[in-house]
C-alpha cells in the first residue's frame, strides 16, 4: 500500500538538545495513529515536523509524495493539505467563527466567497455549532472553540489531520463533545495522527499506537496488542500510570 506520510531516520535538535532521535514512521491513507508518551518526549515536535511548523535537521519527511526540506517550494501547498488542531485552539480572535472558517478557502484556495461560506457552514454543522457562526471566538466555550478549530481545518478539505492534545485545555465536561467530533471524523475515513492521553478514544479509533519517550519511538503496535500486551517495560509503566 502506498504511504501518504513517510518519515525516515528523522533527527532534530533544539540547539544542542536532541528532541527527535531516529524517527521512522509510515502512515497509509485513512490510517489513524495515536501517539502517547510522557511530557517532553517530543510528541508535539514530531507532528509539527509533518507540516513543517518545525524543521528537522536529518532524515527525510515525505508528505503526499513531496519531500519536506529547506528548499521545498510551495510548502504552503503541503500545509493546505494537512489540517492541524492545536491544544490552545488558536482561533483568530478578530474574526467571527464563520470568517475563521472561510478565510483560508477564500484567500488560499481562491474560492468565491459564497462557496467558501457554504463550505464553512457545512463543516460548522458537522461539528454542531452552526448556530454560533456569527459569534466571535471569545464568546464561545472551550469545547465550542475547539470544534470551531476543527471545522476551520476541515474547510481546507485536508488529506491528513494532525491533532496535538486537542482536549488537554478543556474542562472535563467538554472533552466528550470534542472527542465525539473526532470519532465521527475518523469513521468518515480521514487520515489522522492524534497526540492524546485519552485512551478510550485511542482504543475506539486507532489502527496503530505509538509510544514515545525521550525523543524515540519506543513502541509501535496495533492498538489491541499495544494495550493488552505491551512489549517494552517503559510502555507498561506509562500505561499503568495513566490507565
Amino acid at each position, binding site marked *: 500500500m502506498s504511504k501518504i506520510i513517510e518519515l525516515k531516520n528523522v533527527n532534530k535538535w533544539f540547539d544542542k538538545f536532541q528532541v527527535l532521535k531516529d524517527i521512522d514512521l509510515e502512515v497509509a491513507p485513512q490510517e489513524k495513529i495515536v501517539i502517547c508518551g510522557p511530557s517532553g518526549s517530543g510528541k508535539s515536535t514530531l507532528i509539527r515536523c509533518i507540516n513543517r*511548523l518545525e524543521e528537522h535537521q536529518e532524515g527525510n519527511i515525505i508528505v503526499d509524495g513531496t519531500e519536506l526540506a529547506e528548499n521545498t517550494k510551495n510548502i504552503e*501547498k503541503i*500545509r493546505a493539505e494537512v489540517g492541524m488542531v492545536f491544544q490552545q485552539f*488558536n482561533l483568530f480572535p478578530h474574526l467571527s467563527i464563520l470568517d475563521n472558517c472561510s478565510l483560508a478557502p477564500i484567500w*488560499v484556495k481562491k474560492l468565491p466567497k459564497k462557496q467558501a461560506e457554504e463550505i464553512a457552514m457545512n463543516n460548522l454543522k458537522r461539528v454542531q455549532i452552526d448556530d454560533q457562526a456569527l459569534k*466571535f471566538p471569545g464568546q464561545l466555550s472551550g469545547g465550542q472553540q475547539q470544534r470551531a478549530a476543527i471545522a476551520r481545518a476541515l474547510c481546507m478539505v485536508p488529506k491528513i489531520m494532525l491533532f496535538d492534545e486537542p482536549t488537554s485545555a478543556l474542562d472535563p465536561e467538554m472533552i466528550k463533545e470534542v472527542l465525539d467530533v473526532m470519532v465521527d471524523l475518523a469513521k468518515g475515513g480521514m487520515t489522522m495522527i492524534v497526540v492524546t492521553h485519552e485512551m478510550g478514544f485511542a482504543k475506539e479509533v486507532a489502527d496503530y499506537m505509538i509510544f514515545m519517550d525521550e525523543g524515540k519511538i519506543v513502541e509501535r503496535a496495533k492498538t489491541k496488542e499495544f494495550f493488552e500486551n505491551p512489549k517494552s517495560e517503559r510502555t507498561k509503566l506509562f500505561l499503568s500510570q495513566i490507565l
Partner: protein
Amino acid sequence: MNLITKPSKDNIKIFVPMGLFLVSLSFLDVFVNAFFNFDLMAFLPSQLSYFLPLILGFIGFYLIRIEFSGVRPLDILNKNINSNNFNALLTLFTIFIIIKSIPPMLDWFILEANFVGNSKDDCTGDGACWVFIKVWFNRFMYGLYPDAEQWRINTAFLILFAVVGVSFFVSEKLKKYFILFLVFVFPFLGIKLISGGSFGLEYVESAAWGGLSLTFIISAFAILFCFPIGVILALGRRSSLPAIKYISIGFIELWRGVPLITVLFMSAVMFPMFLPDGTFIDKLIRVLIAITLFEAAYMAEVVRGGLQALPKGQYEAAKSLGMGYWRMNALIILPQALKLVIPGIANTLLALVKDTPLIFVVGLMELAGMIGLAKTNPKWLGMAMEGYVFAGLVFWVICYAMSRYSQNLEKKLSTER
C-alpha cells in the same frame, strides 16, 4: 448634641448641612475675592483671612465625609473627591486655583482684549490684541500663496472634507472606493491643484506655500506614507532573513538616533550636494521625505510592539492553513497587532503634526513659522503672546480631534470582538 463625635450616619442631619455651609462659604470667599476683588473676611487679621477659606473648606469636607451615608450624591462626592484629608486638600486647592485663574484669563482673552481696528495702535486695552491675528489671518492660513489663487487650496480641502464627510454615510462596499480614492488619487490630485503648472493653472512654487494649509499638507502626506513604511520596517525587523532584518534595524536605529531638526537641515543643505549636477528635487519634497522616514522609524517600533504581543499560536494557525508570509500578515497578524497599538500610533501621528513647525530651519513656514515671521514685522512688534496662544489653540484643536478619533476607533474595534 455632641459635636466632637466622628461624623457618622447617626448625626448626618446636623453634620452635612454644617459641612456644606462651610465648604460653600470657603468657595464664596475665594470667588468674591477673585471676581470682585472684595475680601469677605477683611475683619480678620490679614494672614488668617488669607488662609481662612482653606481652613473652612477643610473642616467642611471633614464634616460631610460620612461613609455609607445612604445618600447617593454624597457617597459619590465623598468617594471621588473627598475620600481622606489629603484628597480634600487637593480638591480645595484645585477648585481655588480654577476660581482664581478665571478672571485674569477672561480679562486677557475677552473682556479687555481688542477686536476692532487694523493696526497695532488700535490695541489700547490691557488684554490681547486679536487685531494682530485678524490682520494676518490670511497669511497664517495660506502663507505667501498669492491671494488670487487661494481658491485652489480651498477647493482641494473642500473636496477632501466633502469626500471624507460623505464616506461616513455610504455603505461598506462603497466606502472601500472612497478610501482608495483618498489614499491613491486625491493626494496627487490635490497637490497638482495647489502647485499648478498645467490645466491652465498658474504655477505656484512650493516656497510660497505656507501657513496652516502647509501644516495640513505636510502632516497628511507624512502620515499617509510613514504608516505603510513603518509597518514594512516593523515586519522587516522581525524577518528571519538576516539581510532584511539588519537593514531594517539599521534604518530604524539610524533615524531614531538623530534629532528631526538635523535631519531637516541635512535634507535641505547636504542632500543636494550628493545629487548629480542638474538634478533638482523640490525643497518641500525633500522635507516631506525626511519627515516621513523619520516618523516611519518611530511607527515601526510602535507596530513591532503590537507584533510581539501576539501569541505564537496565531502565526502557527495561519501557516497550518496554508497561508504564506504576506497573507498571514495581512489577514491575521497585522489586523490584530495594529488594533493593539492604536494608542501608540495616535501618539506618533500627534507628535508628527506637532513636529511640523520645525520645517522653519529650511525656510518653510507653516502656521507657527508664519506667526514667527509676523511678530518680527516692525509694525507688529510685541505680539508674540497673541500669536503663539493662537497657534497653540489651533494645534490643540487638531490634535484633540485626532486623539478623539483614535479613541473612537479603539472603542469601535474592541466591541467587534
